[in-house]
């Protein structure tokens, strides 16, 4: 397939078109993904998540700059960004504005940025985000940053997609109880308090550290036992605190390698994708085998309370798929 060769050879237009194809799940793009899949699995995937307005895009921009212009004798890393923004639930349209903060990255052929709308997907990512990351990985990008939508408390799909998860907070976004609620803070491998020039930064930092101390180790709450989540201050506009953040990312990467957790996470990711795809496929097959009339009939019976929802499922699903 010419397209696959082009992507492997670094053709940026081919890559961009393939990503568009994946978003609309076209036949050709799915086949290309099949062929590219064996080449993926080498990149370090970094998820950047947090509430809207905490400075995720600016921070991502600074991270890319740091990966492209490393200190000492390190080699610049080819870096890709997938930046997800929400689609309107009413019109399906979207305003994708993450590139505004990434203008410093223009003109660098070692950087590729793609904006992506959620198209109705919950969890903070788009349906096509995972396959897009696989394609960018196969295309030879060594670092792939995935920026989620401005995430609330429960948009934690990124936890499955990334190797290292950076959760970005900003001063003044909530008290100690907020910091101890379940969800987004639990998935952090690195916690960042951005906008560190703003008042209240010490307090936010204290809440976060308190949260980590209370949760860690005792009950195995899903937090990684051997990794201590650092709380770091940054100012994404000035670049302050960025060296520490980069250092923490590399340290986490080393930790994943040494502990064998890279492989565990990759496997969990693939398991997750496999199960998701099986669900989708089964649903499609069920839809093909079930007529609209059967469905309406079941709804009628339900409305008349002649059968329960469980019995309706028995009739519509259990008796069909054997």
């Amino acid at each position, binding site marked *: 397939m010419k397209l696959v060769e082009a992507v492997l050879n670094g053709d940026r237009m081919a890559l961009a078109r393939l990503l*568009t*194809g994946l*978003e609309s799940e*076209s036949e050709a793009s799915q086949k290309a993904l099949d062929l590219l899949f064996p080449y993926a699995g080498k990149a370090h995937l970094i998820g950047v998540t947090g509430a809207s307005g905490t400075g995720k895009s600016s921070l991502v921009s600074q991270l890319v700059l740091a990966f492209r212009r490393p200190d000492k004798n390190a080699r610049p890393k080819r870096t890709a960004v997938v930046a997800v923004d929400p689609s309107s639930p009413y019109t399906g349209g979207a305003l994708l504005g993450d590139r*505004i903060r990434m203008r410093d990255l*223009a003109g660098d052929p070692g950087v590729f940025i793609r904006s992506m709308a959620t198209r109705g997907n919950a969890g903070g990512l788009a349906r096509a985000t995972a396959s897009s990351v696989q394609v960018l990985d196969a295309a030879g990008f060594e670092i792939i940053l995935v920026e989620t939508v401005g995430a609330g408390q429960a948009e934690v799909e990124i936890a499955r997609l990334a190797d290292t998860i950076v959760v970005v907070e900003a001063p003044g976004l909530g008290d100690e109880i907020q910091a101890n609620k379940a969800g987004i803070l639990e998935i952090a491998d690195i916690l960042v308090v951005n906008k560190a020039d703003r008042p209240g930064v010490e307090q936010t930092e204290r809440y976060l550290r308190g949260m980590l101390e209370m949760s860690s180790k005792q009950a195995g709450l899903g937090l990684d036992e051997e990794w201590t989540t650092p709380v770091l201050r940054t100012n994404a506009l000035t670049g302050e605190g960025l060296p520490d953040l980069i250092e923490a990312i590399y340290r986490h990467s080393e930790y994943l390698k040494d502990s064998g957790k890279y492989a565990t996470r990759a496997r969990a990711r693939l398991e997750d994708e496999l199960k998701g795809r099986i669900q989708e496929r089964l649903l499609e097959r069920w839809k093909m085998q079930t007529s609209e009339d059967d469905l309406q009939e079941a709804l009628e019976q339900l409305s008349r309370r002649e059968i329960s929802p469980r019995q309706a499922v028995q009739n519509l699903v259990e008796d069909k798929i054997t």
Partner: protein
Amino acid sequence: MRERKIRVLIAKPGLDGHDRGAKVVARALRDAGMEVIYTGLRQTPEMIAEAALQEDVDVVGLSILSGAHLVLAPRVINLLRSQGQERVCVFVGGIIPNEDIPVLLDAGVRVVYGPGTPTYKIAEEIRQCTTAVSGEITDNLKDE
């Protein structure tokens, strides 16, 4: 296969710092169901073309109020062509003197919109342009 959304890049080339118009159009196209990428102020033609390539857009809208449209718009179009994006529909919005409009159209600009253009008209014409150019908006990939 799912629906192929129309993707639009709204860009401000050149040095004027007034982007109210660009933002109004971006928002209106969002409300018309399109995916709109806005890249912010003071973009060079090279930055715009590169963003159009990475984002694989169907449409580029240039908002120019500085008076440099005769230089900036053709330059963006030439860059798009040279990277293989001949099919991208380019429109220009802003303060464009009447006598410059034919020059821009000659250079490959699809439509020029002045102040007061109703935004539904822009959305409508984008739909026409994207379907006229690529037959139908389905897939840019050929099975080879």
